[in-house]
């Protein structure tokens, strides 16, 4: 998966989880939870969305790596 594909995927999954939020509002380095008001249910839904799109199992201990957009992109691209 390329950087652009990963970014596009993150955008569309976030849109499913929280249609009202805009990824463009997130400043680089800011956590998704804080920037977009995601609670633990939203965040789980986000992880499930990424899982369903990619097949990655995403264990709970990896959640911290998904907390920023950059972290998500790295996680998705390095996973293949």
């Amino acid at each position, binding site marked *: 998966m390329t950087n652009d594909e990963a970014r596009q*995927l993150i955008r569309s999954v976030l849109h499913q989880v929280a249609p009202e939020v805009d990824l463009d509002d997130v400043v680089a380095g800011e956590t998704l939870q804080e920037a977009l*008001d995601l*609670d633990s249910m939203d965040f789980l*839904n986000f992880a499930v969305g990424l899982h369903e799109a990619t097949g990655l199992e995403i264990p709970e201990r990896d959640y911290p790596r998904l907390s920023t957009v950059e972290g998500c992109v790295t996680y998705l691209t390095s996973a293949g």
Partner: protein
Amino acid sequence: MPSLGADMEAGTIAQWLIKPGDEVHRGGIVAVVETEKSTIEVEIFESGIVDELLVHEGESVPVGAVLAHVTSRTAEAATATASLSPPTGPFPPPPPPVAHENPVAVPTRVAPPIPAARSTVPAPVVSPVVRRLAERSGVDLATLSGSGLGGTVTRSDVERAAQPTGDEGARPEWAPGRVGPRSSPFARKLATELGVDLSTLQGSGPHGSVIERDVRLAAEVTPAETPPATVASEDRPAAMRRAIGALMARSKREIPHYYLSTTIDLTAPTAWLEQANLERPITGRLIMSVLLLKATALAVKAVPEMNGFMVDGAFAPSEAVHVGVAVSLRTGGVIAPAVHNVEHLALDDLMAGLKDLVGRARTGVLRSSEMSDPTITVTNLGDLGVEAVFGVIYPPQVALVGFGRVMERAWAQDGMLGVHPCVTATLSADHRVSDGHRGGRFLAEIDRLLQEPEKL
């Protein structure tokens, strides 16, 4: 028109799902109603044959107005009111919250009726969305057994039935088994509002999914023939703010609140949750909120005066524990629909129910029983940052439990100082029903239950 929450004064019939001559079953969904706060599927509490519909689609009527006449089969002569009435007779629905300010005279009856166990409902409970999906895919709903909460037939039940066997390859990779093009919840909502049929659209989003732009383009080309379903949505934020304000003012005016707070060590439930989630696929994982909800529902057994309603100045305890879950809407406002019979739900079922409820509260449609019958409310506001939340009780309920953010704290135990995950639990309760001593007992019981998470 049933009272779908104590803050509701009127409702608009957005859609009838029945017509004269139809057979209806208790618990079946008969109409979609728009209120200031939400779109709600109204369930009927009578079985029988529909005689006539008295309110047109698009018409707004006050709480208590008769919507339809239904003749029950057992007592042919008896004409029942198609509303949220208990099955024992044609009781009038609850009056609006501020009856003296409402010009419509309705008999006083405050207690929202508790629906009977939903598993006894003969016909499958189906939402309009699922019903339409079934019609489109040629699935006979009567042949399905629902896998949803309380036997509700869900979208995936229909999709599974519609799926020809051995057709796994045709399933899209991240929206399993969905019939028609994939689409975001927002696109679906928009499509409903604009009267666009999603199944006719070519998606331009990722993996061919239908996105907002596709719906808007389609709506421009083919002007909607049907009126928008969400008639009240335009000024909903303002109306919702007004409704919340009126209800909370009433609560503070009528209910002598007292407040308690305690800090609970979450080391045991946190460790249990980590282990439990290791064994579960990502789609089945649990979150801490589920343990907190379950513990609250079970604690009610020890202190029943937290669970029920104030009716005509007297407390009516409830046998079942229907926990209202405060869901904040990103567009502003808060809504607290109920998960039913939480005390009997296994954690996995509670998680599924909560997920479904929060999702529908935010984007979709709630059911009338979810809106009218929470017996106690839990707010988990702290999930988004604060240490503690002291809530305002939703009348006619008598207690509200608040959980703050789970955070690591220095914690002294057995003469040792350690770092433990902790949460601050608060209780707002009605002094007409209980005292601080009993309230303290209630919070202590929640704490005790959380220390044995495997028993929840």
